[in-house]
């Protein structure tokens, strides 16, 4: 497992797709944060594709939660895609999906 993350951005009309692969943790997350911060106005939906994600730690999860809050403020939608079984279980334990549902349905 390499201690690096690769983030590729793809813009399709008003949708932004972030392909994240490698390790998203305390020491590698800067490129992901930079891409999130550079999301332009007019984007209606951000899809984070985790197909190549090998590992994510609490700081990485924190950045996703913060993206969901930012989406709520800036009025765009967030979708997480391509999550492997292990990370799916981790997200369920921590409550990532519950938070996303609640915030995106205007629960906060």
């Amino acid at each position, binding site marked *: *497992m390499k201690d690096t993350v690769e983030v590729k951005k793809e813009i399709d009309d008003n949708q932004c797709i972030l392909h994240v692969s490698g390790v998203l943790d305390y020491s590698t997350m800067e490129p992901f944060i930079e891409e999130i911060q550079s999301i332009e106005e007019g984007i209606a939906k951000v899809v984070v594709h985790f197909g190549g994600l090998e590992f994510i730690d609490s*700081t990485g999860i924190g950045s996703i939660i913060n993206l969901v*809050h930012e989406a709520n403020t800036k009025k765009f939608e967030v979708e997480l895609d391509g999550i492997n079984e292990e990370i799916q279980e981790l997200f369920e*334990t921590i*409550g990532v999906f519950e*938070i996303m549902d*609640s915030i995106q349905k205007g629960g906060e």
Partner: protein
Amino acid sequence: MFRRELSLNNPEPDNKTKTLEREIKLARNIQMKLLNGNNPKIENGQISGISIPARLIGGDYYDFYLLSNGKLRIVIGDVMGKGIPAAMLMILTRGAFRSAAESTKGPGETLTAMNNAMYEDLRTLGSFVTVLCADWDPCQRTLTYASAGHNLPLVVKSIHEVFEAPKIKGVMLGGLPSTSYEENSIKIEEEELVFFYTDGITEALNQDGEMFRIDRLEETLKKNYGLDVKEMEESITNSIDKFTENVPQKDDITMVLLKVNHDQTNITSYNSPVINP
């Protein structure tokens, strides 16, 4: 000019560095004393906890609170991030737990009170904490637990059997405002051991970049079934050390072990009054 050069090249940065180092060491002392304090004594049973930060200070947390009804409230938590920022939030978590433990009926209520107390601060800081809270009833031998996004404890039943406590729902502290936490109870029999932990154990890396994982943890727990809590604690840390082969620890490692010995368990207090039933 000459004086300015002297001050730029020489001792001021060193003094600042030394002061910073001294302050970090003091902060470490405070954290280690608050964390690794006295474990409560349990007659016919044992409880122990240990936290090993990856850096000088860390964001993991465990604590015990003896309730006036004779139950013991156990908490273990993991603050997002590492080092000094996580340590600061760990102290905030400790205060929230101590205050909530006194005024709440069960672990679910404790987590709700902690989340209510910490939510705004955690959101402002873009952070969160995962916490597992459990009440150990020594008379009924039941463990009632609630989780705020934390790993569930493992129960070691024999040399052949270990299982994870049944799943319950609950989001991390700082995740949602005014949220509630489910509770579940399990019976713990004589000679069984309950193992609470943080992910620094299962995510410990070896030289090939492989993780220790829950399988190795469960094998170590089963292999060492029957040991007392301190010996088990040592077996786990030795097993992790052997696996990681001196690869620097990346995440804080914390575990709490509760073992029920023969006969009825009675808790004797270390800092709170015990009301005998």
